[in-house]
């Protein structure tokens, strides 16, 4: 039986990377973002809380955004940040961690056009 990657992640760079201009970094993560308030199928037990509690976006190993998400964020969150493109471009990377300890990461090279 195939094992599905439970949390696929899409990291995209939107816009043409030109030095000194901004590009958008978009991150889409597959995650149920379980609030801990919902009841299970039997109606008695609550489904345990499991949300992505932190997302770290780095650009050339330097943190450019740390997000602390709460239960108000919908499933499969979409996060986007704008960065100014430096002369040599660089590596964009995303790391996240959820309440149950699952980790995810993705990286993409930002090449100056």
């Amino acid at each position: 039986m195939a094992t599905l990657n439970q949390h696929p992640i899409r990291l995209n760079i939107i816009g043409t990377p030109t030095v000194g201009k901004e590009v958008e970094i978009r991150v889409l993560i597959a995650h149920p973002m379980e609030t801990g308030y919902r009841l299970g199928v039997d109606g008695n037990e609550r489904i345990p809380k499991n949300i992505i509690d932190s997302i770290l976006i780095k650009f050339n190993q330097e943190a450019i955004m740390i997000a602390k998400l709460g239960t108000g964020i919908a499933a499969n969150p979409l996060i986007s940040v704008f960065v100014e493109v430096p002369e040599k471009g660089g590596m964009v990377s995303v790391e996240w961690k959820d309440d149950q300890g699952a980790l995810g990461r993705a990286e993409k090279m930002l090449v100056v056009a």
Partner: protein
Amino acid sequence: MKLFAFIVTIFLFCVTNSSQAQSVRQSGNAFLSPDMLRQQHDPTLNPISLWLDQGQELWKSQCQQCHSSVSETAKAVVQFPIWKSTLASSGKLINIEDQIADCWSKKSGKVISNDATEILTMSVFLSDAAKGMTIQVREPQDVPMKNQWQEQMNLAGQIYVRRQGRLNLSCTQCHDQQIGKNLRSDVVSPAFLTGFPIYRFSWQTVGNLDRRLRACYSGVQASVPSTGSPELRALELFLKKRSEGMLWDGPSLRR
């Protein structure tokens, strides 16, 4: 026979009535807000793309050895549900998820439910590959099978116009007669089956047509048929037949 004529009359009435309201048959996408349409068409914004990534992996690891071409396999999406007869029974309607689950079970030797994540993911992947194909339901050629198939169509035609639930509403009252008006905070779209499975924001996940239809039953406070019940398959056939000739939209975003 009288009953059949009656249903046909009602069916024609529905079709002509809706065509008076709108000269062309419109897919549900025509009723989305510009923002949602933009999100649907941009894979970097659309959460369905995450399912497509998984589907791609599954296709490569599980299906590719036998089904070499994705686009050939995806043709089934616009042809199902089909009548399938087995040795054990005279036959039944099966939809694309049933078919995938059946194939999966045969391959892995384990029975898998047709709303399991893997099946749904595969269905999303195939549905995406079928984008732009023309809907053309595959009808059985064999006469006794064709009769049974027609019986299911008639049954679904009856369900479609039957008032039910505590709200005492039939499908046709909203999905033919109130198209374009608001229901809660959403716009009522005509019942054309052009883009399933859907990612529905209120579910926060992808769901198949069974789930959507069950939500309709529960919305009018009727007793909800179980997943995969013959009633839902018949309705799916009716809706697909109704959408014949329209283009397949692929997996869609809905509120």
